[in-house]
């Protein structure tokens, strides 16, 4: 049985190599894989809007100049359903954004990985939907 399962599962390899693209729109068309950015700064504004929320933040450069960046995130609906609210991320909170700059060179990036300075991820939560068969493994 174990061998048979291993064979079946090995067959998944090819299918697993495909990368799912599930955001509302193509981020690869908007942001440049060749322009990675790592930004540390304080939140100046949150736009909890659809199809994607945007985090605005001030980033101080090595020359001391402050530049405002816009960071694209996901749909607020998912977070609201998990109990986060518009007060969950206060203006002034310091965050670190690892992402990719917009292709047109403007100060916009996607928040590919957004953390607090101590490395904790923002909005970390359950990946389930809360639906009965999602929560109860025996409810198949």
């Amino acid at each position, binding site marked *: 049985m174990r061998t048979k399962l291993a064979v079946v599962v090995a067959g998944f390899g090819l299918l697993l190599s495909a*990368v799912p693209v599930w955001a509302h729109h193509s981020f690869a068309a908007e942001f440049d894989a060749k322009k990675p950015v790592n930004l540390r700064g304080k939140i100046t504004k949150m736009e909890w809007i659809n199809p994607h929320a945007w985090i605005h933040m001030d980033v101080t450069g090595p020359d001391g100049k402050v530049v405002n960046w816009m960071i694209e995130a996901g749909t607020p609906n998912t977070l609201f359903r998990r109990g986060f609210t518009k007060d969950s991320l206060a203006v002034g909170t310091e965050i670190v954004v690892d992402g990719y700059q917009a292709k047109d060179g403007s100060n916009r990036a996607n928040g590919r990985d957004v953390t607090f300075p101590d490395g904790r991820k923002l909005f970390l939560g359950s990946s389930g939907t809360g639906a009965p068969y999602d929560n109860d493994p025996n409810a198949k």
Partner: protein
Amino acid sequence: MGAVALAITAAFLVPGPVAGQSGSSGAKTYTAPRTPDGQPDLEGIWSNATLTPLERPAELAGKQFFTEEEAAEYEKRILERNNADRRDNQGTDADVALAYNDSWYDRGTKIVPTRRTSLIIDPPDGRIPPLTPEAQKKDALRAEARSKRGPADSWEDRNLGERCLTRGVPKLPSGYNNNFLIVQTPGYVAILQEMIHEVRVIPLDGLPHIAKNIRQWLGDSRGHWEGNTLVVDTTNFRDEVRFTPYNCCGGAGENLHLIERFTRVDANTIDYQYTVDDPARFTRSWTVAVPLTKAPGPIYEYACHEGNYGMAGILAGARAEEKAAAEKEAAKNASR
């Protein structure tokens, strides 16, 4: 003789999951509650989130169902693959395409309860049937015309989801907001799709479809009850529904004739199936089953146009790439 009888008996006994496509053991005995006017009650908030793909992956050809053990292993692997917190491909378009942290996604964590390896239940191979020669020719002509344009010469080159026009009917499971609100009144059923805040209002009055020349993004739906099953017949789609990003219907457009069936099979499940009927496009009709599972809600507005800065970003990105390419070309010519 005894052996033959045994073989016949065995044929009727295997395998469990095939017997009920809903996968609910209570399907035969369950009586759905009734609305005040006596319709089977489908009301509430439902989710169709699932890890089961529309088509059976080629690697699983011939395998209609997972065993329980295989299903658990498959779910684990798919969740690992989908985990957007992984950064295996940094500096590539594949990494950019995953967009943001995993906490923004909400795809569900399970395959369908039947443990079927595809959402397509008919044909038995779990694949969209071959296209007719006529449809293949049409697709080739369209692809040729499309190849003469860039990826984002205009917003019209982008898909209907990116343009916030529609996610299509039926809306297949995707990365998040896989929720539906069903409301019933005497004479109507309304279905709100959270993505992208689209409402289908389905009359149950028995009247024929609207005139053929009237075309709509969500088509024209008419419903009626067959016992405990709500049957919804939809035609009059706009041809552009071919471009919905999570394509329910294999690229079917104006000739799409959709037949949907909603049957409440237990307190937490609607057995939802749809059949794609488009003889001009497909060599046969085909059927998909995606269970709708009771979801806790609430359902939220998804005002797609409200902040669709992404579209401007995509167009600006394409212009920047064209400019860079033109400058490179000019520099090459100047150095000759």
